[in-house]
């Protein structure tokens, strides 16, 4: 070719915007210069030739610009194509590598799936309970009034503002100007439903009493039939209808469209099903199932003996409203607080007004964003879930460290390939991209497997929460979380090895011909980094193991702590006599008859009763005046109280410290008597005996006849509060709900059914529910058990992964030092010396990890100390156990490579090198 016009190749066309401009300028300059030369040759003077040349060329600037335009476009297209073809190349290269190392790939995918799956499962629950908004239009406009966790709350006595009475709700509804509407929602305790003709055994759906505007405020349309309208609020009993939830319609009525218009009996009252709520709306109570909604005006019909619509002393309602456009939460809070306070103060008896006023000032009503609905489980589980999230994040970090180590080993095995390719001109970014592609592919596949695992994992977690009904569907947010997590994982475990693998000193690597590694690399190279990763894994494991130990021990303390009663021998029977219509004299007769029946049952040591029971979730409080004690504040005169039957303390197993216990003489005709617990006695009578002094409440005065040891009544964690006990037969209004406490001679669980049947034979319409005290207590610490159990599982997983990492690194290190060991042995070292040498190095890594991990563990425990019960921040048993377990696993992980090193014969070692 060079014959024609002397053409020879000089260099390839450069790339990049600056190159493009330079090239175009040079090309056009050349043209002009050639033309000038030609014209000069034909006889024109230079200047004229130049002018002529430019004239013949035309508009230089336009030509230059349009050339550049075309070139830029072309450049972009080329870059896109080359990027895509590189990507295709990298992916197929990565797939080939993965396919060639099936074992490696399987291990990587499995650990990734475990790590990502655990994180996704936990996040699913956090998302469902803590983060997600109600599936209604404009959830951000919703506000809750009251304590959103008290979804099953019911309180009789002093009016309150964490849950409201119906009249208080009516005041708020009628007076608010800043909310466009407010609905009421209250629990419907144990419903009995007969839905089919001839059905004998009633079912117990979970229902809520709601005001007629419930669906209107939430802006939820009916999926079938209609929802409630304002008609349902007109007058009690006027609209005997219900709306079913979609889930209940499907499971109980098999999605039968003809249920609309059908009549069911709830607590004996015929109600017509008028509609089904949409599938997307499971209710406003997050974490609990709602089967059906009943107009609140039906409450008197369904629960005839509880005046819950008119009584200002029956608090059971939570409210939710919508902000008018432009109104802020703070403005609404101010308005609602003043409405509630005014209503509570104005409706209180004159003599209590002062104390009500100070109460509402101290604890104003809670007005919060209602976007996430009401939830009991959110408050219960949020802290445990975040602890769990921390634990599974640590597991994932360990997984990453492990994988980074594996990738590093792989990359260094390919060190020569890399140096050859770089010597041949491959650029480093390109190689890093290629190595990262493999990490990304692994992470994406691991993430996908993790999502599958999470479907199962979140269901298992929900089962462990003991009762929460959580919609654990994998929605877009969860999938986005997993995707981001997987990509971050890939960067974490892929980037450093990829950078390390391509940072090869060319000459050194090429010189080291047959040997995989150069000496220069050993000191600071992959070996050092691998060790650092192991130290990090050990540190993270220490963190998790010490945490696990402390959580487990805290749970054990909770399970065995002395609560002041014989917790293993008590059976409790909840009695609801109110619904069956018992009150006053008939109620007293029933109580006495039940006590007699229980006491006569074989296997029963003694039986008593109380209004609240213990660990039942109900609690009463009151204000008292105590003879000889001057209250400094309102708080000073407040006291928890319970009205109890004869033999209460002996039956439960509490000690009488002073005076006497209640007995048969403390009846309607006996002198009014009271027993204080020790905390109350010490508080009111710091210097002398409480016996013989008087205590008055609700204008009745009782003589203190005894002091009993403290009984932890509701919460194992809480400090015992001041408490006064009054004989149940001496209070003016006997409780329609009460609890029988029965001390048994054997395992109380066996007696439950016998006793229930024997009591039911007195009057089958009275609702009974028997449970052992120990199971009630277990329920109250279920979230502690959940956290301890699940964190233990992840602690063990972390330990196994860290041991695996240590094993990998030590194996790798000893294999590379085979010749060194051979030499040592040739020079007279015993196998035991080599064994000790290698094990010593493994232990050094462990010690390094412990030094980093211990302070981190102690810091982390500081963060969760409110979850721990009677566990100090330096809990030596937990620490020692963690270290022993870790040391043992590390020794095991280090032993096998060490033994292999020690067994190598000197000749073999030297020859192989």
């Amino acid at each position, binding site marked *: *070719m060079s014959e*024609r*016009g*002397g*053409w*020879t*190749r*000089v*260099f*390839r*066309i450069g790339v990049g915007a600056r190159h493009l401009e330079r*090239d175009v300028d*040079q*090309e*056009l300059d*050349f*043209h002009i*210069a*050639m*033309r000038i*030369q030609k014209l000069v040759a034909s006889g024109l003077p230079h200047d004229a030739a130049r002018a002529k040349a430019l004239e*013949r*060329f*035309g*508009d*230089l600037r*336009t*030509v230059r610009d*349009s*050339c550049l335009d*075309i*070139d830029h*476009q*072309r450049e972009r*297209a080329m870059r896109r194509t080359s990027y895509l073809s590189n990507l295709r190349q990298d992916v197929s290269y990565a797939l080939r590598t993965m396919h060639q190392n099936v074992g490696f790939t399987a291990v990587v995918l499995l650990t990734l799936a475990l790590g990502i799956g655990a994180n996704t499962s936990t996040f699913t629950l956090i998302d469902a309970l803590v983060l997600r908004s109600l599936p209604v239009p404009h959830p951000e406009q919703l506000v809750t009034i009251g304590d959103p966790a008290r979804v099953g709350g019911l309180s009789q006595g002093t009016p309150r503002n964490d849950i409201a009475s119906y009249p208080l709700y009516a005041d708020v509804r009628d007076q608010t100007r800043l909310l466009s509407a407010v609905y009421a929602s209250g629990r419907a305790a144990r419903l009995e439903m007969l839905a089919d003709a001839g059905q004998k055994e009633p079912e117990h759906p979970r229902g809520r009493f709601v005001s007629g505007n419930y669906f209107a405020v939430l802006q939820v349309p009916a999926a079938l039939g209609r929802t409630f309208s304002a008609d349902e609020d007109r007058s009690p009993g006027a609209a005997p209808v219900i709306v079913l939830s979609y889930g209940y319609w499907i499971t109980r009525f098999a999605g039968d469209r003809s249920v609309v218009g059908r009549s069911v009996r709830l607590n004996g009252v015929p109600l017509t099903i008028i509609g089904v709520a949409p599938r997307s709306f499971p209710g406003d109570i997050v974490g609990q199932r709602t089967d059906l909604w009943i107009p609140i005006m039906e409450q008197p019909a369904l629960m005839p003996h509880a005046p819950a619509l008119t009584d200002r002393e029956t608090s059971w309602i939570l409210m939710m409203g919508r902000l008018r456009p432009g109104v802020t939460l703070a403005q609404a809070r101010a308005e609602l607080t003043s409405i509630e306070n005014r209503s509570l103060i104005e409706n209180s008896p004159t003599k209590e007004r002062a104390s009500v006023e100070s109460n509402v000032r101290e604890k104003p009503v809670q007005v919060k964003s209602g976007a996430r609905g009401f939830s009991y489980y959110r408050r219960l589980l949020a802290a445990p879930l975040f602890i769990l999230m921390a634990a599974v994040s640590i597991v994932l970090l360990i997984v990453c460290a492990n994988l980074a180590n594996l990738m590093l080993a792989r990359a260094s095995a390919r060190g020569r390939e890399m140096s050859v390719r770089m010597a041949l001109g491959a650029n480093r970014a390109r190689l890093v991209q290629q190595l990262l592609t493999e990490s990304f592919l692994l992470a994406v596949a691991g993430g996908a497997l993790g999502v599958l695992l999470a479907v199962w994992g979140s269901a298992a977690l929900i089962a462990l929460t003991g009762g929460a009904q959580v919609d654990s569907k994998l929605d877009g947010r969860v999938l986005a979380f997993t995707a981001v997590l997987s990509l971050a994982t890939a960067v974490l475990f892929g980037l450093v090895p990829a950078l390390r693998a391509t940072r090869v000193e060319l000459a050194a690597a090429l010189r080291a011909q047959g040997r995989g590694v150069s000496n220069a690399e050993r000191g600071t190279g992959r070996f050092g980094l691998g060790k650092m990763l192991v130290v990090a894994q050990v540190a993270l494991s220490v963190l998790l193991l010490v945490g696990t130990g402390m959580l487990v021990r805290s749970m054990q303390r909770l399970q065995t702590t002395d609560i002041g009663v014989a917790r293993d021998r008590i059976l409790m029977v909840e009695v609801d006599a109110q619904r069956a219509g018992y009150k006053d004299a008939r109620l007293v007769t029933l109580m006495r008859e039940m006590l007699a029946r229980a006491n006569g049952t074989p296997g029963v040591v003694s039986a008593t009763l109380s209004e609240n029971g213990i660990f039942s979730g109900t609690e009463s409080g009151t204000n008292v005046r105590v003879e000889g004690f001057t209250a400094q504040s309102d708080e000073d005169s407040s006291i928890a109280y319970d009205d109890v039957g004869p033999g209460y303390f002996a039956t439960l197993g509490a000690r009488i410290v002073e005076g006497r216990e209640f007995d048969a003489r403390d009846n309607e005709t006996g002198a009014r008597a009271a027993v204080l617990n020790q905390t109350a006695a010490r508080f009111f009578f710091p210097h002398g005996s409480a016996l013989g002094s008087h205590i008055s409440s609700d204008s009745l005065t009782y003589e203190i006849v005894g002091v009993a040891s403290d009984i932890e009544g509701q919460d194992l964690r809480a400090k015992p509060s001041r408490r006064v006990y009054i004989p149940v037969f001496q209070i003016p209004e006997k409780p329609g709900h009460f609890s029988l406490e029965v001390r048994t001679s054997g395992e109380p669980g066996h007696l439950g059914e016998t006793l229930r049947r024997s009591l039911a034979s007195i009057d089958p319409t009275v609702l009974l529910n028997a449970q052992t005290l120990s199971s009630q207590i277990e329920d109250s610490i279920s979230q502690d058990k959940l956290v301890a159990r699940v964190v233990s599982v992840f602690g063990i997983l972390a330990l196994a992964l860290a041991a695996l990492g240590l094993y990998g690194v030590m194996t790798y290190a000893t294999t590379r030092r085979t010749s060194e060991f051979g030499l040592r042995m040739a020079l007279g070292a015993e196998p035991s010396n080599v064994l000790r040498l290698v094990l010593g190095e493994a232990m050094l890594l462990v010690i390094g990890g412990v030094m980093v991990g211990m302070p981190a563990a102690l810091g982390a425990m500081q963060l969760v100390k409110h979850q721990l019960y009677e566990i100090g921040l330096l809990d030596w048993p937990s620490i020692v156990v963690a270290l022993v377990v870790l040391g043992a696993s590390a020794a095991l992980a280090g032993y096998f490579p060490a033994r292999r090193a020690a067994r190598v014969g000197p000749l073999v070692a030297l020859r192989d090198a």
Partner: protein
Amino acid sequence: MADIDVGLMRGTLDLLILKALTWGPRHGYGVVDWIEQATGAALLVGEGTLYPALHRLEAQGWIEAEWGLSENNRHAKFYKLTATGRAQLRTGLSTWQQFVEAASRALHAGASPRTA
């Protein structure tokens, strides 16, 4: 021929460039030179208009460019035909041929054809 249509002109110019390169690589000036000689300087409005066309053909992959040394030892950008460009030239020529024949038949017709 100054009023020649631009669209027609562009297609024709493309063909001329491809044609100019059939004998081997040329730089832009060489292409201009050839076209001027071959057409008797009738077709180029300004010599500059050739360059966007060259770049466009390069982007289309019909020709490719490489820097080289010119006959007077200067850096110059040389263009040469690619295989696609060669094929394009063949189909372009035959289309152009048909177009010219059809157009000239019409333009030279003695009278408008009568319908029976």
